[in-house]
């Protein structure tokens, strides 16, 4: 019955929404890349970069929103590198992505050590504070879960709406979806396949950077090694689970986060006393694999995902 108690508590749902926020940003970023036909395995490293860059900017005295901008910019920079190598040069997206993850992670740790050589306990920053939305936050349970969050969480939901709108209601979105399905048709329209794909990878990587920044600027208020801890890979699974659609991806991230919040709380119950804590920690990863298996049968993969495009080639 402890599970029931957890599930009806408002703080549980608030935690779920908080856990979901960085995943929403990064999943949307990956979704944009994949919709344009590029698998971005740089996501894990780009989240690390974003987490560090945003935190470092604020630690050096920048405004919080400037920090978010810096994180986005840092993500876009690595996105640009990924885009150059994988789009016009058409290199293996697996190799480029893993290379970018390693490069971004190592560069971040290097920069951290150079910037703060003597530090053993990473310094904390004055992070985003909860911002209760008037009236709405007074609704029982929902008010605390959805309307008593930090501004970055609200931004995550707004971003999901914007991505969905652009993807399905604008010419740019149409072109972007087409370039992931049939780049030749986009080429025939006189649009630049290279430009669209590079743009998607850069913007998507920027969102991954913001997702990483959420961890340091709205959750842990500090930067430490291995803090991203596979969240990037989980987001790739969430894109598949969400069938490459922003709305479903958002729901997937929330569902996943609810399970994650549940396993954290269960650790503190009598169940947690009997079962090794590692079992609980495994759950998010096993759940992601399970999600992939469940969705595999009806996955509508973008047809040109991972297919490089070279002008004049059929």
């Amino acid at each position, binding site marked *: 019955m402890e599970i029931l108690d957890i599930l009806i508590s408002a703080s549980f749902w608030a935690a779920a929404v908080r856990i979901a926020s960085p995943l929403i940003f990064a999943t949307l970023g990956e979704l944009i890349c994949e919709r344009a036909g590029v698998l971005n*395995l740089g996501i894990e490293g780009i989240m690390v970069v974003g987490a560090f860059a945003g935190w470092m900017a604020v630690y050096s005295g920048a405004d919080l929103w400037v920090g978010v901008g810096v994180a986005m910019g840092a993500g876009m920079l690595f996105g640009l*590198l990924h885009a150059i*190598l994988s789009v*016009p*040069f*058409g*290199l*293996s997206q*697996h*190799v*480029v992505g*893993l*290379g*970018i993850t*390693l*490069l971004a*992670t*190592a*560069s971040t*740790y*290097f920069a951290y*050590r*150079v910037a703060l*050589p003597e530090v053993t306990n990473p310094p904390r920053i004055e992070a985003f504070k909860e911002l209760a939305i008037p009236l709405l936050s007074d609704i029982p349970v929902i008010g605390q879960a959805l309307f008593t969050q930090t501004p970055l969480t609200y931004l995550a939901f707004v971003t999901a709406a914007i991505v969905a709108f652009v993807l399905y209601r604008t010419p740019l979105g149409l072109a972007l979806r087409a370039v992931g399905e049939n780049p030749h048709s986009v080429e025939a329209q006189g649009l630049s396949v*290279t430009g669209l794909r590079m743009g998607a990878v850069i913007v998507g990587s920027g969102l991954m950077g913001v997702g990483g920044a959420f961890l340091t600027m709205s959750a842990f208020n500090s930067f430490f090694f291995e803090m991203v*801890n*596979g969240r990037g*890979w*989980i987001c*790739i*699974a969430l894109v*598949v689970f969400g069938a490459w659609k922003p709305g479903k991806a958002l729901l997937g991230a929330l569902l996943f986060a609810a399970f994650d919040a549940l396993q954290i709380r269960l650790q503190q119950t009598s169940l947690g006393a009997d079962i*090794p804590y*590692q*079992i609980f*920690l*495994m759950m998010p*990863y*096993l759940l*992601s*694999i399970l999600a*992939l*298996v469940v969705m*595999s*049968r009806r*996955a509508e993969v973008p047809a040109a995902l991972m297919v490089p495009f*070279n*002008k*004049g080639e059929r």
Partner: protein
Amino acid sequence: MRLEPVADPGWTRTLGLPALALGGTVAIAMALALIAGSNPLAVLGLILKGAVGSKFALLETLNRATPLIFTGLAVAVAFRAKLWNIGAEAQLYMGALLAVVLGTGAVALPSVLLIPVLMAAAITGGALMLLGPAFLKTRLGVDEVVTTLLLNFVMILVVSMLLEGPMKDPMGMGWPKSERLVPDARLPRIVTGLRLHWGFGLALICAVLVWVMQTRTTLGYEIRAVGLNRRAAAFAGIPVTVVVIKTALISGGLAGLAGFSEVAGLKGSLTLDLSPGFGYTGIIVAMLALLNPLGVIVSALFVAGIFVGADSMSRAAGVPTYIADILLASALLLMVLAIMLTRFRVVRG
């Protein structure tokens, strides 16, 4: 811009471009040294000296290269069939785990029998670890990149759980480590007195065996065909699913051997820091070797040298050791670009 195939690359292109990639990596190393406030040439010198400058350094590099040859081969075999095995880390731990389960007294055999038994156990463990993702891929079309990646996180938690629970060494002073392997289970030194164990010899043998398999057997031919074009291979009558599963078993088995070699040759027991990412680094080793099994030996030595050299340089000059990972990532990206540009030229329009 677009890419146009180069009919006859010529040796300036085939040698010059990779050389340029290496030069670029060195330039990045020097820039990083400057950023960290050190003398670039001194840092390069210290890395070189730390990697090959003394007998101790050289042996350290060979020891570090040993698991990288195994994981590099594991990745090279799998990538050749376009089976994206990013889970060598988990397979390594599974191999080490089974070797430790059987090698700490559960099986009492003389050394000549015990070591092969433990090797077989490690190969089986690693292979089984990749079999799941391979089945999910062939049966349900589940992308193996994500499943193998996520299993790395699961496996390290499994090891952590066992080392804090049933497999915990009662004499371990509370540290999460397993009991030590019995002496008969340990791989002997190649030369007595020198810190280099037979795991290195085993890795070289495996590289040759994989090379023979890839170039001289039907399976090797089938793996290449499946990797080049799955549909064409199926059309030519190659049982694609069976080939992918066989590839997975070989790849996972090789990574499992890395785990066996580390516990039986070097560490003696299982700990959570048995592998500082050998499974992931294997990807770089394999790519730098262009997936060639014999090339894996060379690139594993190179990669190990950078790691060992950077460790020793960091102690002397204070430049963070993460410089090694940055250099390897840069070398990887620059090299794949250079190799591609030997076969294609960039034209305008």
